[in-house]
């Protein structure tokens, strides 16, 4: 595996205040109505994923932000752009895999998910994007016990 950290001293940002999702105040609102999935909900699913090499969350490292998530609930489409902490980050595919697995487990199966590196933020952007969006490669990676263990560690909840 990697000897030494790819990015030994990442900048750690403040976590955002958890917003309470706004609920309509009208008394006659239909509580059984389908509530569309929005940007914040998707962000909530992935903000606490841990970085593969630091005890910080992807939110704290600004690898993902709410603005980098696009949701089209009608078309059942989610696009997540993530920003690796350094241009040559060899962990980019692992981070992408974590995002994909978390969304696969959290969103309804009708959803189509695209996970991409933010334009211009990675040296091998096209190659990373191609691999992360080839579902056969993703399926094969998720049958690899070492990779799965790594992903599970990143997805494991942190108790503070």
């Amino acid at each position, binding site marked *: 595996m990697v000897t030494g950290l790819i990015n030994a001293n990442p900048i750690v940002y403040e976590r955002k205040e958890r917003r309470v999702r706004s609920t309509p105040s009208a008394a006659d609102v239909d509580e059984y109505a389908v509530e569309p999935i929005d940007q914040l909900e998707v962000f909530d699913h992935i903000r606490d994923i841990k970085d593969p090499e630091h005890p910080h969350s992807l939110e704290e490292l600004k690898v993902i932000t709410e603005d980098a998530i696009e949701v089209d609930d009608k078309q059942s489409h989610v696009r997540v752009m993530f920003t690796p902490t350094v241009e040559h980050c060899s962990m980019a595919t692992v981070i992408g895999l974590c995002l994909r697995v978390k969304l696969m487990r959290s969103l309804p*199966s*009708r959803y*189509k998910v695209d996970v991409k590196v933010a334009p211009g933020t990675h040296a091998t952007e096209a190659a990373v994007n*191609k691999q992360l969006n*080839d*579902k*056969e*490669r993703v*399926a*094969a990676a998720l*049958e690899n016990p070492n990779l799965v263990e790594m992903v599970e560690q990143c997805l494991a909840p942190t108790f503070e």
Partner: protein
Amino acid sequence: MGEALEGNLELKEIQRLEGHSDRVWSIAWNPVAGASGVPAMLASCSGDKTVRVWRESGRDWDCVAVLDEQHTRTVRSCAWSPCGKLLATASFDATAAIWEHAGGDFDCVSTLEGHENEVKSISWNASGSLLATCSRDKSVWIWEVLPGNEFECVSVLQGHTQDVKMVQWHPYLDILFSCSYDNTVKVWVEDIDSDDWHCVQTLGESNNGHSSTVWALSFNSAGDEMVTCSDDLTSKIWRSESQKQQVGDGYAPWKHLCTLTGYHDRTIFSVHWSRDGIIASGAADDAIRLFVENKDGQVDGPSSPSYKLLLKKEKAHDMDVNSVQWSSKETRLLASASDDGAIKIWKLESIS
């Protein structure tokens, strides 16, 4: 295409086969079943590491076998030998397996080992004397079928620079086609003098080929046209003067004929050409599309036909469509397989 295809058509779902506990990657119709009183038979393979064999029974279909004790990872593709007695399966466990259908049972009679990692596709040549496999290890292997269920690797073809997604033999010539994550299709032939196989043509972006992963390819029944499909959201039709090849008059290169674009919104995983000329495509947009040759209004002259959309089936499945396969026996019968774990059988019918 006959007049029967004019007017309103629908793709009617006539069966839904459930049993796999994970995505279904691939399906294959048994080429000798489904006619002369022999009930139709279909094999399917899945991320659940199993292969299932389904058989028509009156108006229903039964699962007659579950092959679950051989492969230790996803079974990515399956193919019946031309005689319909052997089933070949390719798995992410780096092996391929050969199953013999005898007395109602399926026994694993051989395992093909050698690839470094995931085997993604397996294909029999027209006579059933050769098999081809391909892998993420970038290589394509050709195996000779010997007596007593022995399989000997006769060639390891290096040429692709990435993951090879599919191998497919020409419908009657011993010419092998492979398509890849490197965006190209390669054509391989045997050199008669040296007995060795080599790449005679690469269809890439520079000769009107695809700009992203090529997932699958299929031939028309005459063997002179081929369709390829890709992550670039297009399908492409290619043509070759195959009669030339048949008489050994040198190699007739494949040329780009036309591109079907704007019909699928996400990766096209599968294309299949029916015996009577209908191209089906299945994609990650959950849809199935059917295309036929456009015989009216040929703006480019009679020598360059184009293809037109015949039918679109939105939401054919609840999730990605991974494989579409026409029955070789009963015309206008189509099977599809999906990430939703289901296999569907469709009948293309006129709406009266």
